[in-house]
């Protein structure tokens, strides 16, 4: 079977970088009086607008709109007031220096880090102050001709994120055109020389935040049925589940809380660490030691993790160390580890896994889950009609029909049948007995073959006659380390239980009356044919009774209950049935 190293990723689709788009920055439909000089060179005498016409002037770092005195100036997008200047005369005139040449002005900073400038406004009209948040369309003041101005108008400028200057190198033209950019940053650019559209950008536009989950160190051992494409763990195996939040919103996000649920009682979280890649490499983040987060060794089945703020572009991940406990295949419990974002300040809020977010400015629900099955490599119970309950056992070589029959286990039919174990079968060194429960109309002669490699290459075999019911087939230590088994016979039967018994056989011959212990001829592949059926010996040291007889079954009354009890002791767990 082809092994798949699992790195399953559930990705919330990206929804685009959150660039601020702008609406008409004034009320009314006044047109353009001068565009941005898109050649971006001051003093060269060249004036070129976005449409490659000359409706600009040399070095102009914004767009001028012909607003009459007293027109209402509004925010072109939501943002925060960064600075203002007031008190310059309404009519500055050509060459006026007041207010640093821009007269009375308002500077806004937007969520994507860009800024906008509203200049030459009317003295005393400015209605906002630094630090104040404004919505798109909110009134900022009135237009005039303050500062350097050849007549009433509004100068609207757009400064790129991270720039420290309103000079032409730090600003940009946001029109789409042959001499400008190829995508407009106006919500509706409008016709040449006309006012841009008054419609604001949807303030609830999606933010690009995604949540991922992946599992490391597990393989897809069982590719059948409902376990297909799920990573499979073995009991006591340690692995890692990673929940990762990527902030590509174009802005910082704050107060991020990640909720987790381990919806599988057979998986236990034993440790976790919160890391960030903000410095380039993954490193432990301050959130890892937040006192509100659960103790490292007491995550429990669910909880919240405070993740703190994320810078734009930052990712954080929670690496949860988990241990698989009991087998879960076919068990009617949720076999998943889940995560969802409980909170991102102002952007997202979700109460529980599967619930609709009470607040969402992302395009998708920020929740993920990863199913994880827990298999076992030394015990199988075939009591379901579900194909996946075959747990990797499958027919081998021609003439065999094997399928699940409801309540009757794995049906194996044919004149020459062959059943093969899954590739993850791993017979421990101290295993010396095969426990086999079959249902057949007559006793059958079985041949058990094993291979020490995944690609079946016979390394030894054993022959025995099994009766209908429980069979304890003593094989000794010669097959320890086998990776695959083949069970061959020449008749129909149902296989309902198969497991390996480690250590010295633990049965009580005095009480186990329904177990058949057939004689076994073992061929280790080196001409070492021998009978392995041992005599029953009472172990004086630990009080256990050791099979060492040659008989085909124990007939002592009441032995069945004791046999079952000993099986449970020997194997620790038994698969729960559907």
């Amino acid at each position, binding site marked *: 079977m082809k092994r798949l190293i699992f790195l399953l990723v559930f990705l919330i689709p990206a929804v685009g970088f959150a660039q601020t788009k702008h609406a008409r920055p004034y009320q009314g439909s006044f047109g353009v009086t001068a565009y941005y000089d898109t050649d971006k060179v001051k003093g060269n005498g060249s004036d070129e607008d976005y449409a490659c016409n000359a409706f600009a002037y040399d070095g102009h770092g914004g767009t001028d709109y012909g607003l009459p005195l007293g027109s209402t100036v509004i925010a072109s997008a939501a943002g925060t007031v960064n600075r203002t200047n007031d008190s310059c*005369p309404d009519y500055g005139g050509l060459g006026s220096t007041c207010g*640093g*040449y821009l007269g009375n002005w308002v500077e806004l900073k937007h969520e994507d880090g860009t800024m906008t400038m509203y200049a030459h406004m009317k003295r005393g009209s400015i209605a906002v102050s630094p630090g104040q948040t404004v919505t798109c369309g909110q009134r900022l003041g009135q237009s005039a001709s303050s500062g350097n101005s050849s007549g009433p108008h509004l100068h609207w400028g757009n400064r790129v994120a991270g720039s420290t200057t309103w000079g032409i190198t730090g600003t940009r033209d946001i029109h789409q055109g042959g001499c400008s950019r190829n995508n407009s940053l106006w919500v509706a650019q409008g016709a040449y020389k006309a006012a841009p559209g008054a419609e604001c950008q949807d303030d609830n536009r999606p933010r690009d935040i995604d949540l991922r989950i992946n599992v490391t160190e597990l393989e897809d051992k069982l590719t059948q049925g409902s376990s297909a494409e799920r990573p499979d763990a073995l009991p006591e195996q340690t692995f890692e589940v990673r929940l990762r939040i990527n902030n590509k919103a174009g802005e910082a996000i704050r107060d991020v809380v990640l909720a987790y649920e381990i919806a599988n009682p057979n998986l236990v979280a034993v440790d976790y660490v919160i890391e960030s890649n903000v410095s380039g490499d993954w490193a432990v983040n301050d959130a890892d030691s937040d006192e509100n987060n659960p103790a490292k060794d007491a995550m429990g089945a669910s909880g919240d993790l405070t993740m703190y703020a994320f810078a734009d572009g930052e990712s954080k991940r929670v690496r949860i160390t988990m241990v698989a406990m009991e087998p879960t295949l076919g068990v009617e419990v949720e076999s998943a580890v889940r995560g969802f974002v409980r909170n991102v300040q102002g952007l997202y809020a979700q109460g529980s896994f599967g619930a609709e977010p009470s607040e969402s400015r992302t395009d998708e629900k920020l929740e993920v889950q990863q199913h994880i099955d827990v298999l076992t490599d030394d015990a199988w119970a075939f009591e379901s009609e579900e194909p996946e309950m075959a747990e990797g056992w499958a027919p081998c070589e021609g003439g065999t029909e094997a399928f699940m029959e409801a309540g009757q286990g794995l049906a194996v039919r044919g004149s020459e049948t062959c059943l093969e174990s899954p590739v993850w079968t791993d017979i421990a060194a101290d295993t010396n007995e095969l426990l086999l429960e079959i249902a057949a109309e007559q006793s059958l002669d079985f041949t058990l073959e094993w291979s020490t490699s995944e690609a079946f290459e016979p390394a030894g075999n054993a022959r025995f006659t099994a009766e209908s019911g429980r069979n304890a087939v003593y094989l000794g230590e010669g097959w320890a380390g086998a990776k695959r088994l083949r069970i061959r016979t020449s008749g129909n039967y149902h296989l309902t239980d198969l497991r390996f018994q480690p250590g010295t056989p633990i049965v009580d011959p005095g009480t186990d009356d329904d177990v058949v212990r057939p004689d076994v001829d073992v061929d280790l592949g080196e001409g070492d044919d021998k009978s392995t059926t041992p005599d029953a010996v009472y172990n004086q040291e630990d009080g256990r009774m050791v099979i060492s007889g040659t008989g085909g079954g124990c007939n002592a009354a009441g032995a069945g209950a004791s046999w079952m009890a000993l099986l449970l002791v020997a194997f620790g767990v038994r698969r729960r049935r559907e």
Partner: protein
Amino acid sequence: MKPTLLIIAASLLAFAAGCDEVSQPSSDMRTAALESGVTLDVSADGQVLGGEVEPVLPNTDAMRVVTIDRTPNGVELNGRRVLDARMVGNDVLVIDPDHTLRRIGQQAAVVDRDVWPPLSIENGRVAYVKGHAPDLQLTIADLATLRKTVPMPSLLTVWSPALSEDGDEVVFGASVNGQAKIVHLDVSGETHIIDAKGRVPSSPIAPKWQDDRVTFHDEAGEFTVALAPSTKGGAR
């Protein structure tokens, strides 16, 4: 003049005028804008530096550019486009349209870049603002050494500086807490807000400091403020 240019000139609402207008206070600077010919400087011996203000698009904020057509003896600048120009001895300081401040003449040099008018020259120093509007910082350059100082780097929006006659103090317009104010930086480095009853310099004509008084221009015309003795820099 073509009719369109007349319309454009009529729409210019302020200071196309130069020193000529300074000497004769105007009650309405907008009328002065109708005059396209300006005098940028007059030397002690009567030589004139002046030119024509270029027309601009109406209802925009293009820079005021003067094409020089009157030059002092020994310096040929006719046809040169400048944002401002002042005479310094036999040389001329000009701000080119790309905002480069140059000394032209016997001691030709680039003094600074990203310079905005007006220039104030006193006692071997020139004061100006430097940067990108509206983030303009007060800068003072020594004309002999070209050494430059930025006396108030934290003050970002400054305009129209006027050096004292000895070049040790400066008065300028500035945005202080979001309001346009007149600020006096005295010789000890202390600043004082000058009460000018809401008026602030806003003309391309540099304010002129004479004795204890500084004369400015704004849209309403010329006005003069007296500096209180306590703000004059008593440490001198």
